């Protein structure tokens, strides 16, 4: 009962936030909704006994990534999108329709299928007995997934370097701006 309530609350919040993320014209507002989205997701994770992932979700996603977005939005100081209505061409409407229909079909198929179980052997007690969620995830992470873990750390390093290199100020050529004006 509690779980349903929790799920319903979070799920509806998530759905609303997700829609607002893509619908709001102001990027800052989008970002705020994204934070809400992520926070609610963390709540869902926590309700599934995935405390570690939940904490990481908030810590990294909400606490770092979206802040970064916010920063860039402020840095670029973009106003709200100018056009009130999206200019959508015919083929784009087709794609839009196709996409929505496709997802509806998938969702429908999922709903039609038999509900397959709720929770496996990974109950709260089982996890506690195994040493807690963090410990168990850590064990998997540092044994079975050691290589991917190392790779991921390399990836981060690369990303740091790449980000610095890319964002570093360079001399802006006039030609590019002119080209933009014509293009």
């Amino acid at each position, binding site marked *: 009962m509690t779980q349903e309530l929790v799920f319903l609350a979070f799920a509806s919040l998530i759905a609303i936030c997700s829609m607002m993320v893509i619908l709001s014209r102001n990027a800052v507002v989008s970002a705020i909704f994204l934070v809400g989205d992520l926070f609610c997701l963390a709540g869902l994770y926590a309700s599934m006994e995935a405390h570690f992932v939940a904490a990481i979700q908030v810590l990294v996603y909400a606490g770092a990534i979206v802040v970064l977005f916010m920063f860039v939005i402020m840095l670029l100081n973009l106003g709200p999108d100018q056009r009130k209505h999206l200019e959508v061409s015919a083929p784009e409407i087709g794609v839009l329709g196709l996409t929505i229909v496709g997802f509806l079909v998938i969702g429908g198929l999922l709903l039609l299928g038999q509900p397959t179980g709720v929770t496996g052997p990974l109950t709260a007690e089982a996890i506690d007995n195994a*040493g807690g969620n963090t*410990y168990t995830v*850590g*064990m998997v992470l540092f*044994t*079975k997934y*050691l*290589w991917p873990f190392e790779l991921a750390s390399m990836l981060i390093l690369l990303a740091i370097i790449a980000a610095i290199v890319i964002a570093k100020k360079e001399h802006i050529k006039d030609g590019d701006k002119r080209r933009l004006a014509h293009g």
Partner: protein
Amino acid sequence: MEFINSHILSITTFVPLLTAIAVLLSPALSIARWVSMGGSIVAFLASLHIWFYFDAQTAGLQFTEMHEWIPSFGIRYIMGVDGLNLLLIMLTTFLTPLILLSVWHLDDKKQKAFLSLFMTLECGMLGSLVAFDLVFFYVFWEAMLIPMYFIIGLWGGKNRIYATTKFIIYTFVGSLLMLAAMIVLYVLHFQQTGVYTTNLLDLYGTSAEYSTQMWLFAAFALAFAIKVPMFPFHTWLPDAHTEAPTSGSVILAGVLLKLGTYGLVRFAIPLFPQATATFAPVMVALGVIGIIYGALTAWMQKDAKKMVAYSSVSHLGFVVIGSVAVISGGAALSAEALTGAVYQQINHGISTGALFFLVGCIYDRRHTRMLADFGGIAKVMPWFAVMLIVATLSSVGLPGTGGFVGEFLILLGTFLSSPLAGATAALGVLLGAVYMLTLCRKILFGPLENEENKTLEDLTPREFAYLTPLAILAVVMGVFPNLFLDKVRPSIENLANNFRNYKIVAEAPLESNQLLGADHKEMGH
């Protein structure tokens, strides 16, 4: 003491790495210099510890350390010393402080980064020397490239980007092939024994089919041949040397290249004995070609540094042929040649290191390395002349210098293996004298005509401080080679006589404490 004895290799290897971090953290360059020097000296002292406690009576692996690293793949942290790498470890730790001394006066903004990279490089080199696990070795082997890449790419000459890219790509191609071969070997070993392991000591026993062996040997040998570099794969070397800063050249010629020959002796030959026997003539032929070719091209160079660089191609040709001199119809390697090869590696590090240092000395003063810009320098820089002549003589293998002992033993062994190859390679002794004496003559002798050369200052005390040890060592190695050979003899004889069925045992039992696989549950209690 117990702790030091059982972890001395880790200490030697990782003290430089810690130093590198400390250098980065030090607030001022002047402190960074002392920190790096201190770290390198600690590493040297640690290696001296190895040297003095090394048991010269056994061919076994000593000061071994083994910890689980990635147990699920059978990858371990294994380190050890035997006669084949002992001298190279000493060379590395010995050269590093000298090189640091040679860059003591540089104070550009990036110098701290340079010192840090350099210490990282030392760690990489030492690591690949002491590693006895394929993956562990490979990690160091590749890690070594990165600092070198930056050292050439950031502190190099005009054409440095081209040179450093060439260096990286060349080396990388070989390394990747080697990695592939390592994996094949790993799987083969699993198929034969059912155990996943990358422990070199275990892999020595793996027997592959003849045709497979050929491919594996080719892959390994190619990787090492590029590093050495052997004749057709050598063109990265002159570029890298010409563009690298003096210190980079010294360490490149002094140690990095030796890792190629060391790899050949440590990995390619004992792992694939049959293929070695088959490929030996090819390797010898390429080595001999390299000797002659390198000497002739060196002779034609107008740039002093390039000349020394090509001379490395020639000299390392000797080491290669010494490593693969098979005798008794392929049943054994010539112990004489192998001894010579091991010894010559060190000599080359000393003499060529000194030569690069010396070229660096005059480059610092004149900002040119063109032979045509010099002449008659001996008059204004008499001590420089002394040092250059000593280095030259060691390089041309004059008896009484280390170079002779190495070259002689190699030629002797090669001659026993194949008189034709030995006799042809002996020509290298003559050609070596041709270009080295040309170098000497064009720099030191002749009329002192160039106005700028007339005011050159002789060696400074700092330069003395890093050249004198090299000069003394060059002579000591020539007069008392047994001081060094005694330590390495059992290992070399073991490899030479038993390379068909090579086995080394760890003297101290490899302790299998799970340092990194520790059970987290027990923490904090």
